[in-house]
């Protein structure tokens, strides 16, 4: 796996993109995600109304892969319903674990986040790419139980 396929311009730029780094007024869920072995952490904020993710944002620190993955995930889930978000979580995690071939048509649903399919060849960094998606999964699971 060459570095060019990992640190693509898209991933490098997205890791520094400030657009989704903010707080949400009236967030319905604030979830902390943490990789204790490396110290990376993100706080995901969601505003879920009537089963739809009306707004999403994050703050935190971490490597380019974890930060880009978080930002791309937010672009993808904003405006989607919770059910669709769960579907995307399953799809993304299957992709970075290498359970779905990189050229599989289903990955088109992941938009820019499909660029992280290269992580399947970089086992040491899968947890970086998956951090935000696991955090989202937890946030939505908690959200459901509150209803």
């Amino acid at each position: 796996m060459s570095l060019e396929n990992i640190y693509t311009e898209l991933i490098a730029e997205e890791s520094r993109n400030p657009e989704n780094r903010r707080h949400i007024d009236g967030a319905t869920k604030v979830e902390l995600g943490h990789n204790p072995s490396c110290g990376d952490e993100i706080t995901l904020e969601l505003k879920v109304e009537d089963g739809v993710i009306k707004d999403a944002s994050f703050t935190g620190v971490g490597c380019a892969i974890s930060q880009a993955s978080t930002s791309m995930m937010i672009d993808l889930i904003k405006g989607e319903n919770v059910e669709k978000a769960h579907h995307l979580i399953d799809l993304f995690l299957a992709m970075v674990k290498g359970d779905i071939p990189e050229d599989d048509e289903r990955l088109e649903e992941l938009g820019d986040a499909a660029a992280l399919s290269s992580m399947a060849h970089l086992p040491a960094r899968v947890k970086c790419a998956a951090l935000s998606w696991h955090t989202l999964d937890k946030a939505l699971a908690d959200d459901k139980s509150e209803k």
Partner: protein
Amino acid sequence: MADALKEAEDFRRNFPLLNIKMNDKPIVYLDNGATTQKPESVIRAMCGYYGGCNANPHRGAYELSIKATDIYENARERVREFIHAKKSSEIIFTRNASESLNLVAYSYGRVFLKEGDEIVITIAEHHSNLVPWQLAAKATGAKLKYIYLEEDGNLSEKDIDEKITEKTKIVAVTQVSNVLGLINPVKEIAKKAHSVGAVVVVDGSQSVPHIAVDVTDMDADFFAFSGHKMLSPMGIGVLYGKEKLLDKMPPFLAGGDMIEYVMEQDTTFAELPQKFEAGTQNVGGAAGLAAAIDYIDEVTFEKIGAIERELLDYALPQLRALPYIKLYGCDSKKDNKTGIITFNVKDVHPHDVSTILDSEGVAIRAGHHCAQPLMKYLGENATCRASFYFYNTKEDVDRWIAALKKVRKVMHLED
């Protein structure tokens, strides 16, 4: 010692792992602070033990078991000589420094600390000499206090002076920080601690492999280190403790080989050091540790220091010439730097730096280095660390720095 680095080339031949490739490139191993590679003599000692001498020591009354016991007890004597302890019964084998420090925190700290007592540690401790004291403080109601750092990374002398008081019962300090690589004045700290009646616990994990250690001269009450950071196998570590303290401490782990008599409701314990060595011990690891000490004795600490110093002198000016590199602990006002260089590349997370260096065959450490409070104190979430040993060469430094110069480009940033 201008030829010190030439000898590094010779030493390399004794280390099979240094001939492997990583990502199709000859490996540049600069993560010696995490663990060192092993010379053939250590690997042979391990194989020799399991291939020809393996039996349970201290138990069987047959020749092979006696041989295993001899190997184990000779290793203890080698360790005693190596760190200049008075008696081999003051040398306790453990799994690693973490276990050694936990032994002290549980069997001394939790037993003798009372509410209102104080434990003093430094902000530069590895989690293994920090978390056990935090837990001991919580369990006993003792207070945990920190010695902070001067601007140059050295321990604050003012803090040493002011924080160690009549209330202090334990002072726990690392001899060399695994992040900053600076040698701490443990002898002076021990003196101060003893003047108020406190015991001093020294974490020698990063010092024992690199500098000559004399526990009697520094007057440490307890001294802990791991074998694997000094050429030995993983899973063998050492706790040195003064006999008068070890004698009054209860056992840490209970079980086989640490008893004298066991009755239905009561047990009396074995003499030192067996009192603290429950269950079958890592004899193969002890054999490897003894071989590692033999190897280090041949190399000599004089040469180890000279090689690491030359590598520092070669690498640091090159790093300082790169405007996007930030260094930590590299500007000590004292002559007390060991071969650890902690750094960051501007705007690039250490894990991304590490992945990019990995693709060039260069192994460094990235992250919090099990020292989260220190990272926070330094104002960072994570850093990169290159750590040398005597088998590293100028070529290793060249390959590391060449790879480092690629990092910002790979991340689509300008130089």
